């Protein structure tokens, strides 16, 4: 940044220009101007820095500290060393929550990872109704999550719910959906996939459109059929975004909360997840903020691995 870009404040003396450069007073004037410029910049940034410091940086440190303390918000916090972590490992719900979260993430990837890609490839070839497809697939993403989940709660109703009504009409076996320990998890995954797949689909679509058409043209001239072009042109070109979205999807699905919270509650061991257990420890049942904080630290560590992979991946591409 050249000094010529410095603001000319009305009333400030143009003295430095008249002095010979390099003299003592000129240097002092430059210093003074740099300080004034910095003060102005920090005045602009002050609110932002305070918000980040109080609501992002400080809670990060506080969360780690809290995980070594006993805190119920009533009595003063007390240092307990690793006791919170020991109690976590002794709690059977802790292991259930991680197993369920892994299962949810796995199922969500199985279902929610391939489907948006296939749909995007398909939509990219359709020459009609482009706006309609895009709007339709993204509509669920726009809805408030609680609306989606409660709507599906009506669909899942074992008696008169939409799904069982349709299944009965088609003489197919019905299901207890979220009320069955076997079908509960996949039911949660179905809602979540329906609600979130629009984002991934449209990102894939944008990436597909960025593939240079010459590549397909050349492959076709070389006699590659549609499948061969998909295999040898589309897939390699999409590898990067597929990897990026895989990591982002793992990070977001591991934080699943609202689907189990609304549909099965935070007591049902067959669907309790890491986030609903944190909620249960801190807010719903135990009022034990230290225990909830140590669970959060562990979640943070696990997600941190995927976040680091994501960072490396996107850094390399820059």
């Amino acid at each position, binding site marked *: 940044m050249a000094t010529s870009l410095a603001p000319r404040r009305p009333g400030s003396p143009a003295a430095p220009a008249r002095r010979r450069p390099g003299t003592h007073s000129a240097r002092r004037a430059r210093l003074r101007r740099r300080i004034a410029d910095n003060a102005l*910049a920090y005045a*602009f940034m002050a609110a932002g820095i305070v918000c980040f410091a*109080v609501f992002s940086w*400080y809670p990060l440190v506080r969360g780690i500290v809290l995980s070594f303390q006993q805190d119920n918000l009533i009595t003063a916090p007390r240092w307990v060393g690793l006791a919170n972590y020991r109690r976590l490992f002794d709690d059977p719900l802790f292991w259930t929550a991680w197993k369920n979260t892994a299962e949810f993430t796995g199922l969500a990837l199985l279902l929610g990872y391939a489907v948006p890609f296939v749909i995007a490839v398909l939509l990219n070839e359709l020459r009609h109704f482009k706006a309609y497809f895009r709007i339709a697939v993204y509509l669920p993403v726009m809805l408030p999550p609680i609306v989606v989940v409660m709507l599906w709660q009506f669909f899942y109703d074992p008696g008169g719910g939409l799904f069982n009504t349709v299944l009965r009409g088609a003489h197919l076996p019905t299901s207890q959906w979220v009320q069955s320990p076997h079908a509960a998890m996949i039911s949660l995954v179905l809602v979540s996939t329906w609600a979130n797949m629009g984002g991934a689909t449209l990102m894939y679509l944008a990436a597909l459109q960025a593939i240079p058409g010459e590549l397909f043209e050349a492959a076709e001239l070389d006699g590659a059929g549609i499948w061969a072009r998909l295999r040898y042109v589309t897939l390699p070109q999409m590898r990067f975004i597929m990897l990026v979205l895989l990591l982002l999807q793992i990070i977001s699905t591991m934080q699943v909360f609202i689907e189990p919270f609304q549909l099965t509650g935070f007591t049902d061991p067959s669907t309790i997840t890491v986030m609903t257990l944190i909620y249960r420890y801190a807010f719903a049942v135990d009022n034990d903020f230290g225990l909830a904080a140590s669970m959060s630290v562990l979640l943070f560590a696990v997600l941190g691995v995927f976040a680091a992979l994501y960072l490396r991946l996107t850094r390399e591409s820059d």
Partner: protein
Amino acid sequence: MTAPSPAAPANRSLISDQELAGPRYRAVYFTVLTVTTVLFAAAFLFPLYWMASSALETPRQFAAQTPTLLPKSVHLTAYQDAWSQMDIAHFFLNTVWYAAGGWLIQISVDVCAAYALSKLRPAFGKAIFAGMLASLMLPSAALLVPAYLTVSDLPLLHLNLLNTPWALWLPGAANAFNIYVLRRFFDRIPGELLDAASVDGASRLQTLLRVVLPLSRPVLAVISVFAVVGMWKDFLWPLLVLQDPDKQTLSVALHRLSTSTTQVPPTEMIAGLAIAAVPMIVLFLFFQRHILGGLSAGALKG
């Protein structure tokens, strides 16, 4: 930049237009198109239609549940009862107020910070920017408990923000994504424009308001839409910090009503859901270009 050769249109996709026009693929194409169109309507539009139309039935019609595509008779009572008796009106206005205030605070804080980082280049600006970006990598879930404790008792000031709009507004202002996008946009505004303004005697704040902001209208629109949508959709954080039923957002109130012991008729509940969804659908139809465009830009940048 080379001109694309006429033989290879740059915008072609996997299957070329000539192939599709061929007799073999024409029938396949139109079958696939029809099936996809119908499936999309069934999967994505029908649930919304079901929501809007079920709330038009009487509780008895709804319970009978012989699936009818068109409601036999239209009753607006569920919508009216949801609006007034269930007090959806109150929670709707709460949410509008939280979203409007949150938008204003988020935009002012983030625009100022991004402007300083981009155009004033202060000492340690890079480190501060990195610290802000690092927060993007922090999963919000991991910060939930300590952030709640912070809001319930602000460090140094010892203020309790629970059950006040500030509990949503201030943490929302710390939005690294906004600052990142704004800073990138501001970086592309040529310095000469700002110099010209300062030669004309404009202060830094005047330059921001009269030169930078008018040029930034497109990016401000995208950020504003995402800010409002984000606040309207938010659930877990408002659930924690707004436990006073009177202060709750629409999403949190809907959850509370669905679990409360007083039985709400299902049609009224569904009407409540539909009312909560309408602003987002309207916003989407109005700003779809901004929303979908913002999404694609994010995808290409990686």
